[in-house]
C-alpha cells in the first residue's frame, strides 16, 4: 500500500460511477421526504407478502428510520465516491461495489422495515454482505478469519434475535412493528417479556458489539478502509442500536431494560475508550472509539427521559458524521504514507492541507468543542445523564470519563499526525485527490454547520426521531450552543481539562494501559480456543459416529428401527396374536419353506456367490407370495429388481476377498432376532386389524371412467399419483448420477 494514491488513468469505469449515482439518487429520494417527516407525519407502504401468516412487505418512514436512511444513503454515496479512487483499478472492484451497494440496500431495508420477518431478512442480509466486505481482501488469512469471526458472532446473535422476533410476534399476534408499538404497555406486562427481551438483546448486543461481544469489531478493521468507514461507523454496528431504539416505545421502562442497557452501555463505553487510547494504529483507535459511541447510545436507550432521547438522536448524527469522516481521513493517510502507526506519522499538515482541515473539523466535533455539533451532543449527553432516574452520578461519571478519553483520542488520531513534528524520512506524502477528501470535508463541515445552526437539525430530524421514541414532540429538548451556566457546562469544562491532561500524558498512559490489558483475559484468543475446541469436538464425534465400518452403520440403522417398532408396540399394547393356520395350502407352505431355507443358507454359507444366490432365493420367494395373492405388477417388479440386485451385488462382491469363516456374533444375532420379531409382530398386527378399503374402492370405481385404465396399480402411478411418481423418478436419476460420480472419483483418487 506504500505506493501512494492510485493514478487517475486506472479508473473503474461504469462499475465505479453507477453505484455512486444510484446511492446519490437514493439520498435525494430520502431528502425529498424530509418535509413530510418534519411536519411530524409518517409514510407507510405495504404490499402483502405471505398473507396467510399476516406477513407484509411493509416499510415505514418516520423520524427514526429517516434519520438512519439519510445517514446510510448519504455516507454511502460519499464512501462509494471515495472507494472508486481508493480502490481504483482494483481487479475485483466490480465485486466490491456490488457488495457495498447490496449492503447499503439491505441496511436501508432494515431501518425501513415495518414487519418483524422483513426486518429479520434484512438483518441477516446485512450480516452476509458485511461478511463479504470484511473478507474482501480474501487472499489474506487474517482477513478471512476476522470476517468469519464477525459472521459467527453476529450470526449467532441473529439466531437468538430470530427466536426473539418469533416470540414477540406470537405474543403480540401480529408481525407488524407499528402494530406492536400501538399495543402500548401490554408487552411489558406479558409473562414472556423477559425471554423476548433477552433474546432480542442477544441479537442487538452482538450486532452492535457491546462488551463482552465487542472483540469482533476491531478485528473487522481487516476490511478496506472505506468499508470500515461505512459499516463500522454509521451503519451496520448501529443496526442493533436501531432495533433497540425501534423497540424502545414497546419495551423500555422496566427495571430489566433500564439496568441491562445502562450497565452494558456504560461498561462498553468506558472499557472501549480506555482500549482506544491504548492503540497505536489509527484505524484500531477509531474502531474502539466506535465501540465507545455504541456503548453511549445503548446507555441512553436504557433511559426514558426526553433529555436522554434527544441526546441519543443528536449523538447518533454527530457520531456518524465525525466517525465516517475520520475513517476516510485515516484511509488518505494510509495511502499517502503507507502506514497507520501513530509513531511514524508527523508533520502531514503542510503537505496534506485539505485532509488536515477535514480531520481537524471532525476531531473538534468528536472532542466536543464549541461551536461544533459534538459540543451540543456532549451537553445533551450530560443533561441526559443527569436526568437519569436511577444513578445520575454513575452515568454522568461514566460519560465524563469516556468523553475525556474521547477528546484525548481525537487529539492522537487527528491532531498529532498533522501538526506535530516533521515528516519522517522515506515518506513523500501528498494531498489526496478530490474524490477522497470530498467525503471527509463534507461530513466534517456538516458537523460544524449543524453546530452553528442547530435548528436545521432540530426540526428536520431530531424532533421526529424523539417522536418515534417517545410519541410526543414535547419530549424533544432544544439543541443550542449556549444553554446558560449550568451543570452540563461545568462538566464540559471538566471534560476539556481532563481530556487535555490525558492527551498530554497519553504516551505514558498507553504504556500503562498496555500492561493492564495484557494481564486481562484476551477474548479474541479465547475465541480461537473456542473454535478449536468446537472443531476438535466435531472431529471426535465424527470419528465415533462415522467410523467407516459399514457393519456398524447397518447395526445402528437396524437397531433404531427395531427399537422404534418394539417400543411402540410395548407402549400401544401388543397386538392380539391369533394365528389361524387352518386355511394354509400346500403352495403357501412350500413358498414359506423356500424363503426360509434361502435365508438360512445365506446365514451359514462361507461362499459369497452362494450367499448372493441364497438372498436371490429369498427375493423370489417373496415374488411368489405376490403372485399367489394376485398382485402381478408387484410380483413382476419384485422379480426383476431381485434379478438386477443379484447381478449388481455379485459385480461388487465377487471382487472382494473371499469371506472369512463365519463366526458367531452375539450382538448381531440378537439384533437380527429382535428385528425379525419386530417386523413379524407388526405384520400380524396389520393383518389382524380390518382392512381399510376406502381408497381401494375409490380407485376401483374411478380408474376406468376417469383415467381410462384397467390396471389400477399403473393408473395410480402415472395418473392419480403422477406427481409422486415424478418425484420418485427424479430421486432415481439423482441417485444414479451420484453413485456414478462417486464410483468415478474413488477410482481416480484411490488407484491411479
Amino acid at each position, binding site marked *: 500500500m506504500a505506493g501512494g494514491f492510485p493514478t487517475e488513468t486506472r479508473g473503474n469505469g461504469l462499475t465505479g460511477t453507477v453505484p455512486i449515482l444510484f446511492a446519490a439518487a437514493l439520498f435525494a429520494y430520502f431528502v425529498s421526504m424530509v418535509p413530510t417527516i418534519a411536519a411530524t407525519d409518517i409514510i407507510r407502504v405495504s404490499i402483502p407478502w405471505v398473507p396467510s401468516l399476516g406477513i407484509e412487505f411493509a416499510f415505514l418512514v418516520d423520524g427514526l428510520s429517516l434519520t438512519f436512511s439519510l445517514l446510510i444513503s448519504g455516507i454511502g454515496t460519499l464512501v462509494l465516491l471515495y472507494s472508486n479512487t481508493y480502490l481504483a483499478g482494483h481487479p475485483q472492484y466490480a465485486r466490491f461495489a456490488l457488495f457495498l451497494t447490496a449492503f447499503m440496500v439491505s441496511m436501508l431495508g432494515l431501518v425501513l422495515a415495518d414487519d418483524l420477518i422483513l426486518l429479520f431478512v434484512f438483518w441477516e442480509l446485512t450480516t452476509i454482505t458485511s461478511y463479504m466486505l470484511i473478507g474482501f481482501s480474501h487472499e489474506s488469512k487474517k482477513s478471512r478469519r476476522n470476517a468469519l469471526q464477525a459472521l459467527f458472532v453476529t450470526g449467532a446473535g441473529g439466531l437468538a434475535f430470530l427466536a426473539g422476533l418469533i416470540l414477540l410476534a406470537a405474543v403480540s399476534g401480529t408481525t407488524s412493528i407499528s402494530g406492536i408499538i400501538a399495543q402500548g404497555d401490554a408487552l411489558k406486562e406479558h409473562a414472556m417479556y423477559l425471554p423476548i427481551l433477552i433474546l432480542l438483546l442477544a441479537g442487538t448486543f452482538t450486532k452492535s458489539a457491546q462488551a463482552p461481544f465487542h472483540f469482533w469489531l476491531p478485528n473487522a478493521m481487516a476490511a478496506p478502509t472505506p468499508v470500515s468507514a461505512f459499516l463500522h461507523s454509521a451503519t451496520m454496528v448501529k443496526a442493533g442500536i436501531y432495533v433497540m431504539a425501534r423497540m424502545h416505545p414497546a419495551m423500555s421502562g422496566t427495571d430489566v431494560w433500564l439496568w441491562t442497557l445502562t450497565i452494558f452501555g456504560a461498561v462498553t463505553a468506558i472499557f472501549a475508550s480506555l482500549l482506544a487510547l491504548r492503540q497505536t494504529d489509527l484505524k484500531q483507535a477509531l474502531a474502539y472509539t466506535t465501540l465507545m459511541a455504541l456503548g453511549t447510545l445503548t446507555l441512553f436507550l436504557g433511559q426514558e427521559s426526553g433529555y436522554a432521547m434527544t441526546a441519543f438522536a443528536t449523538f447518533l448524527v454527530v457520531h456518524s458524521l465525525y466517525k465516517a469522516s475520520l475513517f476516510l481521513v485515516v484511509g488518505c493517510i494510509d495511502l499517502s504514507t503507507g502506514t497507520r502507526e501513530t509513531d511514524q506519522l508527523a508533520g502531514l499538515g503542510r503537505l496534506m492541507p485539505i485532509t488536515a482541515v477535514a480531520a481537524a473539523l471532525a476531531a473538534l466535533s468528536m472532542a466536543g468543542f464549541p461551536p461544533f455539533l459534538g459540543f451540543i451532543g456532549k451537553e445533551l449527553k450530560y443533561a441526559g445523564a443527569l436526568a437519569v432516574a436511577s444513578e445520575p452520578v454513575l452515568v454522568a461519571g461514566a460519560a465524563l470519563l469516556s468523553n475525556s478519553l474521547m477528546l484525548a483520542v481525537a487529539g492522537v488520531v487527528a491532531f498529532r499526525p498533522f501538526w506535530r513534528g516533521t515528516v519522517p524520512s522515506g515518506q513523500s506524502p501528498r494531498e489526496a485527490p478530490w474524490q477522497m477528501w470530498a467525503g471527509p470535508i463534507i461530513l466534517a463541515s456538516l458537523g460544524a454547520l449543524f453546530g452553528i445552526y442547530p435548528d436545521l437539525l432540530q426540526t428536520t430530524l431530531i424532533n421526529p426521531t424523539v417522536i418515534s421514541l417517545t410519541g410526543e414532540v414535547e419530549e424533544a429538548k432544544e439543541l443550542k450552543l449556549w444553554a446558560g451556566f449550568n451543570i452540563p457546562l461545568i462538566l464540559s469544562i471538566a471534560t476539556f481539562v481532563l481530556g487535555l491532561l490525558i492527551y498530554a500524558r497519553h504516551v505514558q498512559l498507553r504504556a500503562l494501559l498496555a500492561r493492564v490489558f495484557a494481564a486481562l483475559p484476551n477474548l479474541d484468543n479465547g475465541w480461537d480456543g473456542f473454535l478449536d475446541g468446537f472443531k476438535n469436538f466435531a472431529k471426535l464425534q465424527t470419528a465415533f459416529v462415522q467410523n467407516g465400518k459399514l457393519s456398524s452403520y447397518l447395526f445402528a440403522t437396524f437397531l433404531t428401527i427395531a427399537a422404534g417398532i418394539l417400543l411402540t408396540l410395548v407402549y400401544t399394547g401388543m397386538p392380539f396374536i391369533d394365528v389361524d393356520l387352518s386355511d394354509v395350502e400346500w403352495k403357501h407352505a412350500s413358498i414359506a419353506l423356500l424363503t426360509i431355507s434361502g435365508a438360512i443358507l445365506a446365514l451359514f454359507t462361507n461362499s459369497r456367490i452362494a450367499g448372493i444366490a441364497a438372498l436371490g432365493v429369498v427375493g423370489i420367494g417373496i415374488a411368489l407370495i405376490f403372485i399367489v395373492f394376485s398382485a*402381478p*405388477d408387484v410380483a*413382476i*417388479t419384485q422379480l*426383476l*429388481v431381485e*434379478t*438386477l440386485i443379484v*447381478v*449388481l451385488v455379485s*459385480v*461388487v462382491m465377487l*471382487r472382494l476377498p473371499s469371506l472369512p469363516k463365519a463366526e458367531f456374533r452375539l450382538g448381531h444375532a440378537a439384533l437380527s432376532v429382535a428385528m425379525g420379531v419386530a417386523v413379524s409382530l407388526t405384520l400380524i398386527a396389520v393383518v389382524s386389524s380390518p382392512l381399510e378399503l376406502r381408497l381401494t374402492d375409490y380407485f376401483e370405481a374411478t380408474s376406468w371412467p376417469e*383415467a*381410462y*385404465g*384397467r*390396471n389400477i*396399480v*399403473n*393408473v395410480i*402411478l*402415472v*395418473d392419480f399419483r*403422477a*406427481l409422486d*411418481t*415424478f418425484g420418485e*423418478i*427424479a430421486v*432415481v*436419476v439423482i*441417485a*444414479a*448420477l451420484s*453413485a*456414478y460420480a462417486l*464410483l*468415478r472419483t*474413488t*477410482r481416480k483418487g484411490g488407484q491411479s
Partner: protein
Amino acid sequence: MNSIILRAGTRYLAGLLLVFSIYMTLRGHNEPGGGFIGGLTGATGFVLYAIACGTQDARAALRVLPQTIAIWGLGIALAAGLFAALFGDALFTGQWLFIGATEDDKGLPLSSVLVFDIGVYLVVFGSILTLVFAMEEEI
C-alpha cells in the same frame, strides 16, 4: 465372462427382452406392466448383454450414454406433466385423444399419461444401466 453359448444366446435374448419391455410398457395401462416394469425389463436385457459381451460392447450397442437417457426420461415425464397446463388443467392431469373412436370402440387412445410412462421407462432404464456399467468398469 467368456462363454460362447451365453454370447450367442444373448444376441437373441437381449433383443427379445427389449421388444418385450416395450410391449410391457404399452399394455401397462390395462394389463400388468407399465413404465417401471418395462424399464426394468429393458435394463435386464442390456445387463445380460454387458455380462456376456463386456460393457464396452454394451455401451456401443446402446450408442447413447445411459445417464443421458435417464435425464431425457425425466425431462419427458416433466413435459408430459406440464402439457396439462396448455389446457388449463392442474399439473400432471392426463390428456387423452381417442383416434377413430365410435360409440362402442375407444379407437386408438393416445395420452399424455403414456408419454409420462415412457419417461418413467427411460429413467429406470438409464439409471440402472448407469449404475451397472459404472460398477462393472470402475470396481
